[in-house]
């Protein structure tokens, strides 16, 4: 669609959106810094000793051996015995991510990160059509290669969902343009699971009614999808038909925080409530500190538990009052755990998160039977401890329970690699 702005000038109303995805990001950054590894199969993997031994990402050579992200290091080694495993260096990856953002910001201020290695860019103000968008994509790809030494795959389209599909379509170091007149040929034959927000569970549901491709999803009446998937049905139908109109956010627009959580895989299996209490306390302390730092209070506490057979579940409960007190969050988590876990198996990993926020300056209704004075004292004590921890490190003041098992309590979830997962909405 075009808009006539003067006798001779027409401006396109079609948006030009790019989605740039750094190929094998962690592995590429590692290979850049270690030239001796460039011709070897390389994977970035967690610490096996700390039982975080999974593949986080792998380079193109390792990909040829069918090494997969998320599989255990020993499985990957079976497929490719020469595989070089390097430990992750998250501060380095964050530096490279910021450097990539800086490159994108040369072209537009509408840059919306999606994780460390992906970004949407709305370049409609500079590029008037997708052909010009393609030229910009080439420039960006070249600049990233010169300044960061890694490659990107870029999708160019008129909406965010197709731009993302475009960047996944051809890898590595490729540019794919998805236009209004060719999306049916490119997008519709792809499996439904490739579409944003179609995870394994949704793909299974869709498959159960014979929807296997994005095209089949696009041609299924909305009411059928709604009855199968609820409100997501209509949304996915829009995505599949290229009707997504979600804007690309300004770069400095910080998304509103909706939940704060920490989780960890314990260095050994947890065998009893005391073990769980130690871990939950460390995690709850980090969550409550982050709440206090951001000036928030929360009302809903959620725990996630994974046993040593890798079966996991989550449970949540709403508290009577908004809180940011460490002990209250820990107690709520522990109550949930005691109620829903029967100790058939030992526990491998555990997490706690809080949602349902209000600002901590907002007046709240107190109740007749709770001791508000005591709560206020606890809150002040927590803040004093926060100050001490900020000045002298997280281990300077600890409750005695954490000294019972240093192996379990000796981690700092607040400091150690915090990478926030991104949501599309």
């Amino acid at each position, binding site marked *: 669609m075009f808009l006539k702005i003067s006798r001779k000038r027409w401006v396109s109303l079609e948006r030009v959106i790019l989605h740039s995805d750094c190929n094998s990001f962690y592995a590429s950054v590692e290979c*850049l*810094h*270690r*030239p001796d590894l460039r011709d070897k199969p390389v994977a970035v993997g967690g610490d096996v000793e700390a039982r975080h031994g999974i593949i986080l990402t792998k380079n193109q050579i390792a990909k040829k051996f069918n090494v997969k992200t998320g599989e255990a290091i020993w499985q990957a080694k079976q497929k490719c015995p020469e595989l070089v495993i390097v430990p992750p260096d998250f501060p380095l990856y964050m*530096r*490279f991510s910021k*450097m990539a953002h*800086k490159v994108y910001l040369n072209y537009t201020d509408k840059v919306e990160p999606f994780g460390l290695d992906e970004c949407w860019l709305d370049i409609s103000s500079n590029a008037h059509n997708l052909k010009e968008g393609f030229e910009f994509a080439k420039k960006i790809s070249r600049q990233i*290669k*010169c*300044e*960061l*030494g890694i490659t990107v795959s870029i999708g160019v389209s008129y909406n965010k969902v197709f731009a993302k599909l475009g960047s996944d379509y051809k890898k590595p170091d490729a540019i794919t343009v998805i236009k209004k007149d060719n999306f049916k040929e490119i997008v519709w034959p792809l499996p439904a699971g490739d579409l944003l927000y179609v995870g394994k569970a949704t793909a299974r549901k869709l498959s159960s009614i014979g929807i296997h491709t994005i095209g089949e999803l696009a041609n299924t009446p909305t009411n059928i999808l709604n009855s199968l998937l609820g409100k997501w049905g209509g949304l996915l139908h829009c995505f599949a038909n290229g009707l997504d109109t979600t804007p690309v956010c300004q770069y400095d627009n910080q998304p509103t925080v909706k939940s704060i959580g920490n989780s960890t895989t314990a260095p050994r299996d947890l065998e009893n409530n005391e073990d769980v209490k130690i871990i939950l306390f460390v995690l709850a302390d980090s969550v409550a500190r982050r709440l206090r730092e951001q000036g928030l209070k929360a009302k809903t506490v959620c725990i996630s538990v994974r046993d040593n057979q890798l079966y996991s579940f989550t449970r949540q409960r709403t508290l009577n009052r908004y809180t940011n007190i460490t002990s209250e969050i820990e107690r709520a988590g522990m109550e949930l755990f005691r109620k829903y876990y029967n100790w058939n198996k030992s526990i491998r990993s555990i997490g706690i998160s809080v949602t349902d926020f209000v600002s901590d300056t907002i007046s709240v209704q107190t109740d007749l039977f709770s001791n508000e004075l005591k709560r206020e004292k606890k809150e002040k004590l927590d803040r004093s401890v926060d100050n001490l921890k900020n000045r002298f490190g997280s281990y300077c003041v600890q409750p005695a329970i954490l000294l019972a098992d240093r192996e379990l309590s000796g981690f700092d979830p607040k400091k150690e690699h915090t990478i926030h997962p991104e949501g599309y909405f």
Partner: protein
Amino acid sequence: MCLKKYVNVTARFDENGNITPLAVIWDNDVKFEIERVLDINPAVSLKAGGAGIRYTCRICGHEKYLFLEENRWFVELKEKQYIAY
């Protein structure tokens, strides 16, 4: 094959926040004055393995790259030079 060699650098920080390297000081305290900075650009060093702000400098009549990687400086050093050094 190139090696990444971190070096000591004397630099000028001006009031606008610009950084200009003035001299590279080698490990044995030998000082190499930078005659002129010819170019400043963000760039990658594929040979040595690193990325940052690349200063193209003229040192003793030769053009050399000096990289500022966060808050450390490095140069690309050929293996032969490294062995001799």
